[in-house]
């Protein structure tokens, strides 16, 4: 099946027009970049700028809005945004005290945000960064610095933005950012590769009838390839891996904010079934669920599969995750 988009090179630019057409959250474009800002968070000392490749919609432009990021920058499909777009977005959000950049821990993003940070520092802008590292399949817990960012982005951006809304200093917001980053873990499973827009061919090899636990948003290798399994079996296994990961890092899961994320090609009814199974598991393991949400938050084009993200919350993080926010990607009313 072919994409309705006729030209992959134009996709990011055209999707931007779509983001700007939405009426619930008024956004402004940054110059001629595929980047937007929400300029109304005037009370913040620290502004939050996020970014990453396109193809993960509603991320990253969709997470800009009240209670969330001040600016978002998107690259081409599956490519980190360029340093100039990042830098111009930082300029546009007009920081009072400083800027916190939040992005997934991928080499392309690290490189491009790195150049932008150097440029910003050279201009005297105070800037810090959080590289989201929630994907437990991407490296062992002893090598957290190698872990990739996936749907955990949402909880991390949410808590950081709520902290910024409180008028905290850059140092404090960074502290909270590091904490929520450490407290957030995700695990995904894919049952079909994403389809390349132009060719209509699978972007990587995952034979029909097979699934891969831990496969990354760009087809990065996971931890376990096997034949088809229904979510009834998969969910307890994946939840077990997540709980074990929390334990390994001496942060046992007791009080959880939970997100069931569709990777693009998985139906809403499946996601709901999975959500019920996740909840049953957590109830059985005496984990208090303070928040549970279901939707498409961080996709990989039309990859079929889902991910489960869990944040271990405490009295500091819970209200930050519960604070009101509004955006195309994520809304807390």
């Amino acid at each position: 099946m072919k994409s309705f988009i006729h030209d992959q090179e134009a996709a990011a630019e055209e999707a931007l027009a779509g983001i700007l057409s939405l009426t619930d959250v008024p956004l402004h474009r940054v110059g001629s970049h595929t980047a937007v800002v929400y300029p109304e968070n005037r009370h913040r000392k620290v502004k939050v700028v996020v970014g990453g490749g396109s193809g993960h919609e509603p991320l990253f432009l969709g997470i800009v809005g009240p209670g969330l990021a001040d600016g978002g920058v998107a690259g081409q499909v599956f490519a980190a945004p360029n340093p100039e777009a990042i830098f111009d977005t930082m300029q546009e959000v007009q920081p009072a005290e400083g800027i916190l950049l939040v992005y997934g821990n991928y080499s392309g993003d690290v490189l491009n945000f790195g150049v932008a940070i150097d440029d910003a520092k050279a201009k005297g802008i105070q800037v810090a960064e959080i590289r989201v590292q929630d994907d437990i399949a991407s490296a062992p817990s002893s090598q957290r610095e190698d872990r990739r960012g996936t749907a955990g982005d949402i909880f991390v951006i949410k808590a950081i933005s709520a902290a910024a809304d409180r008028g905290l200093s850059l140092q404090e917001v960074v502290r909270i950012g590091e904490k929520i980053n450490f407290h957030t873990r995700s695990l995904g499973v894919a049952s079909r590769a994403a389809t390349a827009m132009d060719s209509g061919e699978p972007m990587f090899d995952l034979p029909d009838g097979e699934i891969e636990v831990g496969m990354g948003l760009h087809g990065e290798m996971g931890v376990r390839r096997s034949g088809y399994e229904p979510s009834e079996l998969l969910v307890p296994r994946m939840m077990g891996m997540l709980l074990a990961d929390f334990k390994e890092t001496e942060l046992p899961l007791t009080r959880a904010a939970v997100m069931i994320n569709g990777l693009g090609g998985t139906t809403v009814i499946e996601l709901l079934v999975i959500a019920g199974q996740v909840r049953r598991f957590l109830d059985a393991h005496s984990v208090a669920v303070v928040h549970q949400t279901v939707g498409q938050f961080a996709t990989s084009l039309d990859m079929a599969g889902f991910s489960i993200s869990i944040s271990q919350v405490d009295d500091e993080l819970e209200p930050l995750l519960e604070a009101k926010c509004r955006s195309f990607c994520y809304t807390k009313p």
Partner: protein
Amino acid sequence: MKLDVEQTRAVVTQALKQVAAQRDRLNELDRGLGDGDHGTTIARGANAAIALLGTAAPASVNEVFTSIGGAMMKSMGGASGVLFGTFFQGAKACPTSPVLDVGTLAGFFEKGVESLKQKSKAVVGDKTMMDAVVPAVEAMAQGAANSQPLEAVLQQAAEAAEKGAQSTKGMLPRFGRARTLGERAAAAQDPGATSVSLFLQGLCEGVRGL
């Protein structure tokens, strides 16, 4: 042999065109190793650079290289945008020159590879563009030190890059998206290294055709 600014611009444009022409093959290589977009990305960068060279009036040969580096950095995104951009922007740190001889070019690329190493963290053997660019620049530096002619040095550099790109077949990837594929990606040839080789090949042919 020395190239003036105009010749340099023509030759570099030609080399970029040769890279962009291999878009599909480079995508294909990236499909085996990464996310299948290296051809698209490098072609986007090369085309942006070509467009810029077509309108700008570089005042020095340095500017030819720094502007293509800047255009690539701005337009490409992805890992390779910064890496190729950084490499070509090595010329910024070199004495401004109105002509390109073997020493100037070797100087640009030596500076380029130096900054690249800082950003990249990869070394030869990690199955990245470094496997092509490092031996190519070494060959160039050596040729320049021996005062060999530009054409001969470019020929050796292009051959070293091609050999380096070929050598990535069988290497276990340790950087970028490919890293996560481990054994699955061992057989594939690195697309970034292939782009480096294509560029140097193009440069070599361009100079030879002057």
